Structure formats: C-alpha cells, structure tokens
C-alpha cells in the first residue's frame, strides 16, 4: 500500500543534499582533472579505495577526521599510479582509467576483508548557529554534517581558483592546448600530476562519505556506480563548477525520491526503482548538449612531438 504522505518534503530536500555530497566531491575533483586535459575514468576505483581507507582509519584511530584525511590520501596515491602511467609512461588514458577502476575494486575488497559488518561511529551534525533555526530553510540547508559544507566550499574554491587565479589560468592553458602551454615554459606534466592527485583526493573523500556517513559501514562494491555518475555529471556541467552543484543535486534528488518511494511501498518493484538514477543519468546526458570539452582532453603529451 502506498502512502505518499509519509514523505516529508523538508526531510526529503535535506537528505537530497546528503545524497548528492559523495557524487559532488568526486565530480569536482574530476572536473579539475579534465580541465587540465586529462580524462581519468578511474573515479569509481579511487572512490571505493577512499571508502575503505577512510573506514579503516576511522575504526582504528577512532577519529572520522583522520579517516577522511586517510581517504583523501588513499585516493590521491591510487590516482598517482594513473598519473605515472599516463603522464610519464604515456599510456592510453581510457584504458588506464578502466584499469584503475578494476584494480581499485579488487584492492578495496582485499583491504576491507576484516571490516565487513562493523558499524562506523556516528558523525555529529554541525548546525549553523542562528541560520539553522530559520523554519523550512534552516533544516534543509544549515543542519548537516561538516562534509556537506566542505563539498560546497570545495566547489566555491575551485570556481575561484579556475576563474581568478594565475595557477588556475595555467591549469586551463595546459588543458586547452598542451603544446602551447609547453612552449610558454609551463610544466605540463607537473601541472597534470597535481591535478590528477587532487582529483584522487576528492574522489577518496566522496568514497569515505559513503562508507562513513551514507551507508555507514563497509561492504564490497559499495560505491555501486557513483564514480561513473560523477563522470557523467562533469559532462552535464559542461566543465563548470556551479553547474556541477546543480547536476549533483538533481541526481541526489532522483536517488532520494527513489528510496522514499521504495520505503513508501510504491507498486513498482524495487529493482525498477533502483534503475532510476542510472536511467536519469542517461536521459540527462542525451538532453544536455554538452559544452565544449577542454581542447587537449584525453590526449597524451610528449614534448618531442
């Protein structure tokens, strides 16, 4: 029996922000990577590695803060493998990214063996003083755990960095035309390696948010395609930070609504409702005419050419 009145719109919108956060974090990292001209398809692998690293550190050190730091480090180190292979050894970025995902899924499963079934400690919410007391808007926007705010802060910083800083300009130059950037004396490979590691760290944070807050425990394959959805959102956002936020909330919305409909006992079988986020991703990819991709995206750079 379906009972739509059980769905509280305020709670729905609040949990939308929570559901969007892991995808948001992974996507903003990948956005920077792609703006530097690198296509890293290993987001899923880095996310799940971050998820397991964050979980292990949190359980052993007892501190979610250290856990998130560990997740970022784990994601960045795995991304460095991708960076060395594609930037130094000039391997194909599509194939290497896929390899990273396959490897990451296995590696995470191996690391997480002893941690299945343990519950993560609860991360307290940080209600913003005064603002969280505003009716309706307060509980939706200002009553979350710190990572939700961090995600939005990273988006704002990336926006400012890419648009208004010299380093951001260099990064974009490297992504648009690596030969020209090289001729101007910029270190193409160094810039790209840094971007790739930033992307890995963000994906790691996103993964840890899944294993520490969303689920919150470790299970094999817990990212369930979130990394791929993050990649899709970057295309959706036409490589622009604020549109990324919109995209992530859209997908967070579909996910939350789908879960709520499951809980409300909708007549559609669970399996079909679970398809919704993936189908929505395809639909959006089709409907959105993507903006122009960075000029050197997915091309290897070798100075002697």
């Amino acid at each position, binding site marked *: 029996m379906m009972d739509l009145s059980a769905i509280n719109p305020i709670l729905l919108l609040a949990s939308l922000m929570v559901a969007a956060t892991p995808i948001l974090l992974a996507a903003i990292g990948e956005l920077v990577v792609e703006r530097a001209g690198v296509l890293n398809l290993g987001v899923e692998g880095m996310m799940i590695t971050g998820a397991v690293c964050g979980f292990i550190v949190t359980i052993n050190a007892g501190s979610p803060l250290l856990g998130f730091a560990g997740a970022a480090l784990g994601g960045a180190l795995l991304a460095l493998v991708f960076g060395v292979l594609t930037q130094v*050894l000039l391997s194909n970025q599509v194939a290497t990214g896929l390899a990273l995902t*396959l490897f990451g899924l296995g590696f995470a499963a191996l690391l997480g063996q002893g941690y299945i079934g343990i519950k993560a400690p609860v991360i307290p919410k940080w209600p913003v003083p005064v603002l969280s007391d505003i009716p309706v808007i307060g509980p939706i926007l200002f009553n979350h755990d710190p990572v939700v705010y961090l995600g939005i802060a990273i988006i704002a910083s990336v926006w400012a960095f890419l648009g208004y800083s010299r380093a951001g300009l260099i990064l974009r130059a490297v992504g648009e035309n690596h030969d020209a950037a090289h001729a101007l004396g910029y270190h193409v490979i160094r810039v790209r390696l840094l971007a790739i590691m930033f992307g890995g760290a963000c994906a790691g944070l996103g993964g840890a948010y899944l294993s520490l807050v969303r689920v919150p425990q470790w299970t094999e394959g817990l990212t369930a395609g979130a990394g791929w959805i993050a990649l899709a959102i970057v295309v959706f956002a036409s490589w622009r930070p604020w549109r990324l936020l919109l995209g992530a909330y859209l997908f967070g919305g579909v996910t939350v609504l789908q879960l709520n409909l499951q809980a409300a006992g909708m007549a559609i079988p669970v399996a079909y409702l679970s398809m919704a986020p993936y189908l929505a991703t395809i639909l959006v990819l089709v409907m959105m005419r993507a903006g122009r991709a960075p000029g050197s995206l997915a091309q290897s750079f070798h100075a002697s050419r």
Partner: protein
Amino acid sequence: MIRLEKRTAPSRFWTYAAPLLAVVLTMVCGALLFAALGNDPFVTIRTIFWDPLFSEFSWYYRPQLLIKAAPLVLIAIGLSFGFRAGVWNIGAEGQYILGAICGAAVGLAFYPTESPFIFPLMVMAGALGGWAWAMIPGVLRVRFGTNEILVSLMLVYVAQNLLASMALGALRNPDASGFPGSRNLARYPSATSWINEGAGLHWGVVFALIAVIFAYITLSRHIFGFHVRLSGQSPRAARFAGVNPGLLVLICMGISGTLAGLAGLFEVAGPSGLISIDFNAGYGFTAIIVAFLGRLHPVGILLAAGLMALTYIGGEIAQSNLRLPAAAIQVLQGMLLFFLLAVDVLTHYRIRLTARGVA
C-alpha cells in the same frame, strides 16, 4: 636523465615481448602481494599458473579452463573491433546479461517441449538481446553525440536490476516454491548449450573459435577491417577514405553487443544453467583486460583469454587450498593490466639516457 624518444614505427620485438614482460612483472609483484598476505609466494604462484594445467587433478581443471575462456574470447573479440576504431563499449557486462535473459526467456517459453529448433531460436534471441542493448549507446552517440562510455556503463547497472527482477519475477521457476532463480536450462535437453559437459565443451567454445577466425579474416583481409583500423589511427584520413563514421560506430557496437549477448546465452544455457540474481560474474569487465592483453589481435585475445582463465581457475584452487582471498585474484588481474599499459611505452618509444638539461 632518462628521456623518451618516439620511434618512427612501433618496435616489432616489443610488440610481442611487452605482454610477456607484463606477465612476468605481474607474477613478481603478485608473489610479493601473496607474501604480504601471509601465503608462500612460490607455492601460490605455482598453484595459480601451473597446477590447473599440469597437476595430478588437471584432468578436472582443463575443461574448466575452456568454460572460463570461451565467454572471455567471445566478448573480447567483439570489443576489439570497437577499441581499434575508438568506440569505447565498456558495458559488455550489461549486453551479456541481456543476451542471457532474452535467450533464457525463449527457452523457458517452450518448456517442456522438445524440439531441435528451440536452441537455435535461443541463440538468435540471445544475440538480438545483446545487440539491442548495445545499440542504445551506439544510436545515442551517433544521433545525439552522447558519450558511449558513460551510457554503456550506466546500462550495466540497469541490466543488473533487470536481472534481479527477472530472477525474482517473470522467469522464476514456478516449481521452486518461492526460491529466486529460473528453471535449470542445462537440464532441459532441447535448450542446453552443452555438447560434452565432461570435456567442458559447449556451443560457446565453438562460437568463440569461429569468432576468432572471422575477426582475423575481417581485420586483415577485408575492407571493413581496414576502415576500422584507419578510423582508430586517423579519423580524418578515414573520412577521406569514404568511411561513414556513424555507421562504423553502429557496426562496432553491434558486433560487440551481439557477441557479448551470445556469450551470455551460452553461459546461461550451460555452465551456469539458470538465471539467478548473481548470474553475471564480471566476464564483461575482465574481457576488457583480455582485449588489451591480446593487443586487440584475434590470436592474441585467444592466448590472453587462456591466461585469464588460468588466473580464475588457479585463483579458485588457491582460494580453497591456500585460503587466498578472492579479491587478491582481482588485484592480480588489475596489476596485469597496469603492467601491460606501462611496458607498452617500450613499443612506441625508445628510452635514451642523456646528460641533464639537454632535453
């Protein structure tokens, strides 16, 4: 300082030597990994790479190798066309599932009738199911410029959910008193893909060999193979040669989808036997490794699938005899792909030692 210098033509020696070097490096790093996990590295490596072929129980393992290798060859051959042409179908796992669902549905619809026409009909339905699932990303790319990597991958998750709903709903065995999963097609004589179960021989093995020959002739002797290779190396030159890029995308997607669908059908009607929630075993993703390991060459893919089947069977033996975690094998397979991509640099570049600052 170490510097890379581009070769004018890919090195013939390293084209063949690089995969072997990658395998050796994987074995070394794998041994270190197994040692770190507390297993004897030499015994583990021997168990994985030697025992399935030459131990006293190899009479049992050799047919198993055939069963594992057949779907990998079928899927990887299909993927190799697209990968050569720059069409990235990453969703073979979904096409494999759809092939199995469609093929099994046809077989189950005829149950318990016996007729020689049932199995060919199932083969056609399986091929059609895989083809149709692959056409979705293909058509979307051609018509709307949508990224086929993301769409084909999203469809894997959709297919998995569809599989779950089929195993619990439409295709569930009505005599199994509520247990999920379909009737066992391997025990239904008109629908089974087995030719000789004891020898590990089923129609998938036959089709895999046919696919290898077909791919070899197409790629080396036929104009279509030339167009595929040309599009991958130089899309601009391909357009001047009269290649229709949209049509090429559709054909490449169609071939890979059809072969993946066939692989799924042969699997469900033979080794697996029934549609269940966890029917798919990741062949669609492992086949990507196989395709690259075999250098996108039909004969190479045949050898690579054999090697990958070896790690599967050897891994299972190591799991039961040495208590090696299943995930360790997945890590080993991932490492193999990493090393392969890394040593590939030797094929296209020469390593030069120069005084610092010259470059």
